[in-house]
């Protein structure tokens, strides 16, 4: 039987036995699928970097349609989201978070072209150097919206009235933003600035949205996180890791940097090993 051929994004992979991996793919044609990649580990890793998170690949999958576990045949790397040495800590952390988010929101075997295109656009925007924090808010907002979980920014969630200009008042009981007549809202409230940033997210490509202000980004982050947690009924693993990494980095920023003279006194190049 000829393999099923599809473009795909690698969401994650985990070890299987001594020489193989199970790889979770977001395919364009078949949604999320799992496949065994034989020989993906060990001295002769035939897949090289193709199975790293958010690599864009063209795969051949063996197995019956709708199989629970395919076998991965060819896997051509179209684009690596993380060329060695070319990205920093923030990008590496963000890519892992994006992969977990996409994994959590995708159903096995259900193709969702919009999600696939969204994911590709996000990876491309990382490559173009868009700020990853803004891309995180973008991806969250769109995944929530595509799953019908983002409250309307224009209509009151509990009456037919439109929402007034200004801040957005979220009411948990109504699962959405409510007008002043339907309040008082339980919160949180998003400022008018945050609201217009959200409209930019829903109206532009990820690379065109730009960074939000610090306060706006922070309030969107926690707002999205609550929506995601309520939907998935759990926290994403990467949330905690990202927070701990940020805390670790902040911890050293208080330490004084070297001045130029001290830095110059350090050994520059040593090609031979001690």
């Amino acid at each position: 039987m000829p393999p099923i051929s599809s473009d795909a994004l690698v969401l994650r992979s985990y070890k299987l036995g001594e020489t193989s991996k199970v790889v979770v793919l977001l395919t364009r044609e078949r949604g999320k699928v799992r496949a065994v990649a034989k020989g993906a580990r060990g001295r002769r890793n035939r897949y090289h970097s193709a199975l790293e998170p958010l690599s864009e690949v063209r795969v051949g999958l063996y197995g019956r349609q709708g199989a629970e576990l395919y076998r991965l045949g060819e896997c051509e790397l179209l684009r690596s989201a993380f060329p060695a040495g070319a990205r920093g800590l923030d990008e590496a952390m963000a890519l892992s978070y994006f992969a977990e988010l996409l994994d959590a929101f995708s159903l096995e075997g259900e193709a969702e072209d919009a999600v696939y295109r969204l994911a590709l656009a996000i990876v491309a925007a990382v490559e173009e150097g868009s700020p990853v924090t803004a891309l995180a808010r973008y991806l969250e907002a769109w995944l929530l919206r595509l799953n019908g979980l983002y409250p309307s920014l224009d209509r009151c969630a509990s009456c037919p009235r439109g929402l007034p200009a200004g801040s957005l008042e979220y009411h948990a009981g109504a699962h959405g933003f409510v007008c002043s007549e339907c309040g008082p809202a339980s919160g949180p409230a998003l400022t008018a600035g945050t609201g217009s940033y959200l409209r930019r997210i829903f109206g532009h490509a990820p690379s065109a949205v730009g960074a939000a202000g610090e306060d706006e980004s922070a309030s969107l982050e926690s707002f999205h996180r609550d929506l995601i947690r309520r939907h998935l009924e759990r926290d994403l693993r990467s949330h905690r890791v990202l927070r701990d990494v940020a805390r670790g980095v902040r911890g050293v920023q208080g330490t004084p940097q070297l001045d130029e003279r001290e830095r110059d006194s350090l050994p520059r190049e040593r090609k031979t090993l001690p």
Partner: protein
Amino acid sequence: MADYPAPLARLVDELRRLPGVGPKSAQRIAFHLLKAPKEEAERLAEAVGQLQQALRLCSVCNAVTDREVCATCSDASRVDRVICVVEEPHNLLAVERTRDFKGRYHVLHGALSPLQGIGPDELKVQGLLDRVRGGGVEEVILATSPTVEGEATAAYLARLLKPLAVRVTRIAMGVPVGSDLEWADEVTMAKALEGRREY
């Protein structure tokens, strides 16, 4: 395994959990031990039992050792001014095999992995910072794997180490991305070390 007597079935089950041991091999080993002289089976059982009891992590570098301070850390002929940071204890052996490196090591016991929920607190990072703060260290070589996780770990450590007035270098990525350093041969590893670059 319904046909085997319980003790035999149990041993086969345990053996099958080991890496590289399939059901057939597990049976073969179990029957071999059954027929072997009693002392042979007991020696094996004792060795397995001793493994976790007698082994510990080196209090300096976290390598696996049977002493408080491991052989590498207590070797006076090695230099203190360079520390090579690796993810796993077996990665240390890959560097040792090159015979080119005469500095010290630090084993993290993992890499940052947001997808697996492994953050800085799950790694042996603090000890490394303490060693560098203790003085005498001029260079830290980050020899984590050339994977997204290994790169993230190196980038994180670089941010923490640079303010400590130490030179931070990263092994050269001649090692293919996505590969596990566990499998890098001596030549590849030696080249990776030699071509290391300022982080």
